């Protein structure tokens, strides 16, 4: 998929979002008696978003908007992998706790960034994965007294 | 976990029953471990300060053989903290204080646990509302207010005690009162002092310092009689309006509370409320009025307060049925 196609797709999504905002705004109520209601501002914001997105689509189709950036395959793969890894982290946190979660997340992200590991690199990452949760336990849970999400083992 | 807690409690109850059932609260078996007071809001707010002061006074009076720990569980307008407490069914080691969100958050549908899911313990202080105008206001006494067609006042959030009182006053006096919702108590005070709203309704803690500085002028109070701190200011009732509404500083526990634990805390809080430490550290500092209500009476107040909020929120269209 080219950047231009993504640009049009994104503008299209924003256009639909704009319409959704307007549609809901009407439900919330444009005016309450003599004063603007909960739907007043969202209505105008939704209209603005719809119109601006329409202009963005037109500019893209007519070639007025040219983009330099590209979605290179490697970069996109890495970004998506990290996104997926964090998503898994969020889903697993209630079961394994945040600190265990980060200990597992660190090597995964390191693997995405550098798939070929030397022994030395692996040792460093392992050390980080072990030291980081401990340091964060002291920094967040002890020093700042934040109740981190804990796993069944109590950390 | 829950089973073991119940077991401990049963043992505790049996132990105290065997001890003749006459054990005093200090030497009784009940508090076997530390008690936690949950604050469903962040540190530094009204609920937090109230809970921490209660904990301090209880420590100073040596009421508990164990510690009373204060724990903040903020988020979702109190829903997270109150839900946590409501789920500790029968656990006599959890307490929480009552706030406006205690009623409004479940009414808005943001929490499945309402006041009926808690055991009322006691109210230990009362905070009245003072109607005040800024020093430069043309309204010198409440009589000056009676002549106008319309007034504006401020509130923190859409549903609050000032909104309730403003509605009551509007219905009783026939004056149109529009309430402007602000984001914090500081903004309401700014609007009142700057003359952007006609009057404000606030607790003594915020209003009295301004009155003493001569920047605000009191017109009426929301108690049945006059306040000790403002003997010259009439109450709404004296002025001929059937308006009486105050905020009770109260404590609740999880549902299905064993009678033993409830009695223990009811009398413990009575000792707090009647102590000079409480007067010095809370009442004098936050300018609240002394008041004690036991479990049954406090429960009735919770019921009637909830009815008031339900009515006003239906009027505002916030409760969808």
């Amino acid at each position: 998929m080219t950047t231009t196609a993504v640009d049009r797709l994104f503008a299209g999504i924003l256009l639909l979002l704009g319409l959704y905002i307007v549609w809901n705004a009407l439900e919330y109520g444009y005016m309450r008696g003599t004063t603007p209601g909960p739907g007043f501002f969202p209505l105008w914001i939704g209209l603005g978003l719809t119109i601006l997105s329409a202009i963005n689509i037109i500019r893209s189709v007519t070639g007025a908007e040219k983009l330099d950036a590209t979605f290179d395959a490697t970069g996109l793969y890495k970004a998506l992998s990290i996104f997926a890894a964090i998503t898994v982290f969020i889903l697993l946190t209630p079961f394994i706790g945040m600190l265990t979660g980060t200990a597992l997340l660190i090597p995964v992200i390191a693997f995405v960034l550098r798939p070929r590991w030397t022994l030395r690199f692996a040792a460093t990452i392992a050390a980080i994965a072990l030291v980081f949760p401990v340091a964060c336990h002291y920094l967040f849970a002890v020093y700042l007294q934040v109740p981190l999400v804990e796993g069944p083992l109590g950390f | 976990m829950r089973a073991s807690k119940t077991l401990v409690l049963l043992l505790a109850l049996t132990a105290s029953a065997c001890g003749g059932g006459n054990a005093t609260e200090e030497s009784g078996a009940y508090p076997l471990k530390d008690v936690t007071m949950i604050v469903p809001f962040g540190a530094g707010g009204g609920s937090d300060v109230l809970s921490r002061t209660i904990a301090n006074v209880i420590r100073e009076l040596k009421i508990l053989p164990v510690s009373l720990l204060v724990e903040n569980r903020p988020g979702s307008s109190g829903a997270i903290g109150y839900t946590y407490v409501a789920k500790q069914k029968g656990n006599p080691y959890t307490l929480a204080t009552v706030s406006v969100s205690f009623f409004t958050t479940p009414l808005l549908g943001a929490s499945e646990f309402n006041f009926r899911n808690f055991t009322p313990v006691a109210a230990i202080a009362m905070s009245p509302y003072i109607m005040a105008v800024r020093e430069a206001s043309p309204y010198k006494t409440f009589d000056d207010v009676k002549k106008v067609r319309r007034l504006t006042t401020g509130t923190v959030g859409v549903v609050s005690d000032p909104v309730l009182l403003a509605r009551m006053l509007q219905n009783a006096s026939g004056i149109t009162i529009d309430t402007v919702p602000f984001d914090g108590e500081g903004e309401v005070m700014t609007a009142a002092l700057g003359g952007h709203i006609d009057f404000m309704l606030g607790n003594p803690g915020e209003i009295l310092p301004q009155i003493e500085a001569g920047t605000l002028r009191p017109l009426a109070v929301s108690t049945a009689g006059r306040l000790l701190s403002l003997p010259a200011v009439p109450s709404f009732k004296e002025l001929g309006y059937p308006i009486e509404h105050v905020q009770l500083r109260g404590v609740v526990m999880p549902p299905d509370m064993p009678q033993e634990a409830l009695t223990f805390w009811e009398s413990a809080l009575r000792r707090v409320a009647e102590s000079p430490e409480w007067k010095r550290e809370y009442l004098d500092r936050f300018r609240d009025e002394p008041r004690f209500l036991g479990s049954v009476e406090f429960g009735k107040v919770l019921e009637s307060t909830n009815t008031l909020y339900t009515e006003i929120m239906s009027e505002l269209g916030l409760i969808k049925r």
Partner: protein
Amino acid sequence: MEPLILLGEGIVRATTPELLLATLIGVLVGLVVGVLPGIGPAAGTAIMLPVAVGFGGAAAIAGLAGIYYGAMFGGAVTSILLGIPGDAPSVMTVIDGHAMAKRGEAGRALGMSVYASFIGGVIGIVLLALLSVPVAQAALAFGPTEMTALMCFALSLVTVLGGRNIIKGFTALFLGMWVGMIGLDPIAGPTRYTFGFVALFEGIEFTVIAVGLYGLSEIFVSLGQETTGKLERYSFRSLLPNLRDLVECKAVLVWSSLVSFFVGVVPGVGSTASTMLAYATAKKYSKNPDEFGRGSIKGVAAPEAANNSASYAAMIPLFALGIPGSGTTAVLLGGLLMVGLQPGPLLFATNPDFVWTVFGSFWIGNMMLVVLTTLLIPVLAGIVFISTAFLYPIVIGLVLLGVYSIHYAMSDVTIALIAGAIGFVMLKLDYSPVPLVLGLVLGPLLERGVRRTLIVSEGNLSIFWESPIALGFFLLTLGVILIPIAMKRVAAFRALPPSL
């Protein structure tokens, strides 16, 4: 000059070992919560309140306030080095600070952030001492009407921050304003655009969006670029702060400090919005506005001076009137009450020693922060030498824990991740994230201002031009929009060939 003498006496009183220790602890905690992405001064002061109250008296308040202005110093570090705003008021520092770091000038940018924070702090403290009472009285004139006008003026300046494509800039602005409307409507009460999620009832915290939109997206985008080889251009020399920059930026430093001080005094505006306004005016009235956004040293100087100065301004309503104007000062108010003081208009009169001692501790804390951060710069700037394969896993871990720590909510982590993904797409498609965060901060303030005003006036619009302050800001707004258009017309007319 009597207030300055009182301030001097306060500084002397604030040098007792107890107060020095409390101030040091405060600024250290402030630096940490500032540096950590997500968690900021509001959460920091709330967390430390019970501990600080244990110090008692002036030491308690000195410690708590230290967290507030200490966070302003710390926030710049993550913003510059990683492109992740350490806390909400440092979000504007990311724009130029991180661009400089990517160019290999991390040390220079960090150095400027320290000078700027210090100068903004000094200006803020001196103005706090000299003008507290009159400025506090003037702030009372800012009701909903005046707030609306101020926000219109602020939004008119946004046009200069829209990025390359102005239409996409406005699209991002509208998107940000919409995100700001998610949650319980603060004026009428119903929930808006929560998609049924209870976690969205209280709205979306600005910092969560800012960290995701800038921080995570920056990481995502940089994955596509080949970073090896780029690192070799760094030299240790580039990591040293540069005194010449200070001379170059002196006008920007003073101007930004003043703008954000006087805007930041108004209860409800907050240091983030005043920093945005200071940055926008600095760019707008710069001789060379195009350099802003591309790694300009002035783009670091402006927001850093501004957020420090605003942090002291925010304390004026608290100390002079007993009014907390922001979440952080509300915690300070709780602290005052818990150490047994009665905040209110009489605090200056009844407890002058206390107030001036606390102000004196600000001065000392500011000095401590300069020393601490100057010593830390070479260490911190060295981060650029760490390979991303080591750095990013740690940074992502800190972001996740830091965002969680704001409200102790995993839902915030999810929102930050989504914001990061959207930010990644936006950066690729040349939508600037700056207007989005501006809309998120200013949009709700504008909406609330308008609706509150019209409740007061029963829908009568004339209230907007009956207030002289509001009228003034509206005229300024018109000027900001119309003058450049008129100038363009004149220039175009002059450029016409004479035969026409």
